């Protein structure tokens, strides 16, 4: 994925801003609840291999979540 000079400048400003915050503040802003259909609808899931997990994500999760190829 190619990035533009403007994107890189924006990221640099975001990193500068993060550097002015404490670890505690950064963590507060980092974890947000965002319901993910299917993924969040079962209490526990386990997969023998990562390949099986990836395959399950591809077959069961909405494409817009980005868990596919």
């Amino acid at each position, binding site marked *: *994925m190619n*990035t533009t000079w403007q*994107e*890189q400048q924006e*990221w*640099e400003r*975001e*990193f500068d*801003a*993060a*550097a*002015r*915050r*404490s*670890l*505690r503040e*950064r*963590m*507060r*802003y*980092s*974890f*947000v*609840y*965002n319901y*993910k259909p299917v*993924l*969040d609808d*079962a*209490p*526990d*899931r*386990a*997969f*023998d*291999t*990562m390949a*099986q*997990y*990836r395959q399950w*994500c591809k077959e069961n999760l909405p494409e817009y*979540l*980005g*868990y*596919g*190829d």
Partner: protein
Amino acid sequence: MRVFSYEQSERLAEVLNRWGVDYLFIGKSGAFFYGYPDTTQDADLFPAKSPENGKKLIGALRELGFDLTPETERDLLAGKDFVQLRTGPFDVDLVFAPDGIETFAEAKARAVIIDERFPIASLDDIIASKRAANRRKDRESLPRLEAFREYLRKHNLVALPQNPR
């Protein structure tokens, strides 16, 4: 709603460390400890895969308030590659075999201890894991994460300061 908080990360580390669990924070939640600004929902942990570590992990998770079924306990002891938990005070993904990382021991040797208590996979390993997973969401997040790694290098930092003021 179970949003992971700094206080919970402190409690998580305190309990896991007390139980002697061998683990690392990984993924985007690991990158946050370096100062990477972004958002996610759950904490990703990379525990060492062994029955002994599994037993310790079960004890620690129970103490933290996770309601583990006998089946989930068997999964944790059996050495499944990936276990997702949504039955505790916050959401956790346990990734026992992250893509792009050969062994836990190698990752641990490269890991960084942040704030004297949080064991975090190296930023290089976090990036390598996302690159190997190669999902669309990983490909979209990689350029910014790599730019953050360059930012740290440019400023000769392992991580952003924990208390800059």
